[in-house]
């Protein structure tokens, strides 16, 4: 492997927000002063004792951290090879890792004196996590969501409304997550004075990729400590799914300099990379500039952004966080992809063997675990981030399996 001689894989980004050639601040001039202000505030508060204490307090008593490290015994037996562990971030309040980040960002927004929160959401998980902290801290919340996603994710739309958020249906472009992000940026440009944009993944203009990574790194920091304590060793392989890549970078980052640890990111291959209907930016895309950063993007031969496809709405994004693009090019992290149907199989495997209904997103990671664990010896270990629970996905799964939930219920 042609790795550059780096002292650490954990030192990025540089002063201008670059991870190698990726990252940066590609935004309209109207936003630049605010982006610089967010950066300054973030650097000031991330080391501030009171800020850290408040974040730790809510992480523990409100979110329920630390999340357990769990040995998936039956799954391990079924796969017959490496021992498989889950980092149980699906047990967080709101059912996913997203709240680690929204909590951190809203504490920053409050300190910056911002009076209004906006967010984009695809599947609705980040929207719910944002609406949740807005209710907690009594700030008005506007969530941009693609009109198509609103149709597909009705329960999450209702959840956000219960939590007091205003949902703005996005009909521009292709009416999905990337367009929701466009419209959130448009809102921000028009409301720079009083508004804070809580971006949901480790992407966007600097300092967002770094900030979101830091807030999500609690996953990897806990997991590393828990694993060392339990096994007196580091895991041999760690795995996470990737849409924008916030749960993955959160797990990976604390392990990046542990040379013995193999790190694997799993992208969504949708119907298959060859079909063109997928969400695998690294496997099937090229570097480009969108939503404030340079990163790998799904695009056509005119540099127009192509819509992503995945059965998992949370992975359905045509870009990826810039740090992943860099880790891909340096070779430190291996990125592979898993199809819709492989993820569906893994989803059912997890339900059946562990009594855990996982979200479709980590089902992608699990599908890869199921591929490699049997080939590894039983003294090897795999740590996977179970980043979300699957209650939200039961309708999509039923549809994909050809089950009509209403009539099934009648039969029962």
């Amino acid at each position: 492997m042609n790795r550059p001689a780096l002292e650490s894989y954990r030192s990025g980004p540089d002063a201008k927000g670059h991870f190698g050639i990726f990252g940066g601040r590609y935004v309209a001039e109207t936003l630049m002063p605010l982006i610089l202000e967010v950066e300054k505030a973030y650097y000031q508060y991330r080391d501030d004792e009171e800020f850290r204490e408040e974040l730790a307090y809510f992480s523990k008593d409100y979110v329920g951290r630390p999340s357990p490290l769990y040995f998936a015994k039956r799954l391990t037996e079924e796969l017959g090879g490496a021992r498989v562990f889950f980092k149980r971030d699906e047990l967080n309040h709101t059912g996913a890792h997203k709240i680690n980040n929204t909590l951190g960002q809203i504490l920053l927004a409050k300190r910056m004196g911002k009076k209004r929160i906006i967010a984009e959401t695809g599947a609705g998980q980040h929207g719910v996590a944002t609406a949740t902290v807005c209710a907690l801290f009594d700030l008005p919340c506007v969530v941009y969501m693609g009109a198509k996603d609103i149709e597909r994710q009705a329960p999450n739309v209702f959840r956000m409304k219960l939590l007091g958020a205003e949902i703005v249906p996005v009909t521009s472009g292709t009416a999905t997550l990337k367009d929701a992000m466009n419209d959130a940026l448009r809102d921000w440009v028009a409301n720079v004075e009083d508004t804070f944009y809580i971006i949901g993944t480790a992407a966007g203009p600097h300092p967002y990729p770094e900030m979101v990574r830091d807030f999500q790194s609690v996953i990897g920091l806990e997991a590393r400590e828990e694993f060392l304590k339990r096994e007196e060793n580091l895991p041999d392989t760690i795995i996470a799914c990737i849409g924008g890549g916030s749960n993955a970078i959160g797990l990976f980052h604390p392990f990046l300099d542990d040379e013995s640890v193999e790190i694997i990111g799993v992208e969504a291959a949708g119907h298959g990379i060859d079909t063109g209907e997928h969400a695998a930016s690294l496997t099937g895309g090229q570097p480009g500039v969108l939503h404030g950063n340079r990163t790998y993007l799904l695009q056509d031969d005119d540099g127009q952004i192509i819509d992503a496809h995945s059965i998992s709405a949370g992975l359905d994004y045509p870009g990826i966080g810039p740090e992943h693009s860099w880790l891909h090019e340096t070779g430190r992290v291996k990125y592979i992809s898993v199809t819709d149907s492989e993820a569906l199989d893994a989803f059912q495997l997890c339900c059946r063997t562990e009594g855990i209904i996982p979200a479709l997103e980590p089902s992608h990671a699990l599908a890869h675990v199921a591929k490699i664990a049997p080939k590894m010896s039983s003294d090897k270990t795999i740590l996977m981030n179970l980043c979300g629970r699957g209650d939200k996905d039961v309708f999509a799964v039923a549809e994909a399996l050809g089950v009509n939930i209403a009539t099934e219920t009648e039969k029962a």
Partner: protein
Amino acid sequence: MNKPDRLNRCFAKLQQEGRGALVTFLTAGDPDLETATEILLGLPRAGADIIELGMPFSDPMADGPAIQLANLRALGNGMTLQKTLDSVAKFREQDTDTPIILMGYYNPIHYFGVQGFIDAAIVAGVDGLIIVDLPPEEDEELCHPCMTAGLNWIRLTTPTSDDHRLETVLQNSSGFVYYVSIAGITGTQSAAQNSVEEAVARLKRHTDLPIAVGFGIKTAEQVAEILSVAEGAVVGSAIVNIIAQGIDAGIPSADLVNNVHKFVGELARGTGRG
């Protein structure tokens, strides 16, 4: 830039005539290449002093609904960056004086290749670029190569640019300075005249370049007001709306081109032209 280019000559000539510039914006290839070309070729005669041509992009984050739709119409009808450059080349066959600025987002250029694009743009007869998502922090990407090649780099300044920020923003800029008069997206509200006056006065303390003001300008009266304080007035969404209104079930109406030119002629009254 040493030799006087089309933009310098244009502003110098207008100054002699004692009037300001009407800068008209169109999205290249909107609604389709043939109609767009016809509109483009007739713009100078209709009253446009400077032409801004939008390079279609799938995700125009700084644009309002009117220009978003224009981008989608153009892309839907097969517009590409190469065809945008071809349109400029065609325009230059008949007009060697009217400056053309390409405006858009970085990704299509990034994909095309920076140096290849700059070379092709110069050959086609492009006079400058406005790239919305390339702030001074990313000058190494395209701004520096453009300035080296002699292509004007036109900056956007906004109501959020304070004196300190203006110094950074105006450092590498040429041709003219585009003042975005509202904090917001294209084609929405208009700025209050006194806020524009203050902002332009502040800009003039920082630069000798001509100032063009845009965002929310829809009428000849607004053009006249803007030109009482600035060297140029940019009209975009209002023109693009005329195009949108002239499309029925995806087909441009017979009088669409003429209606656009008539509207531009109307706006040009605000420049005191003719």
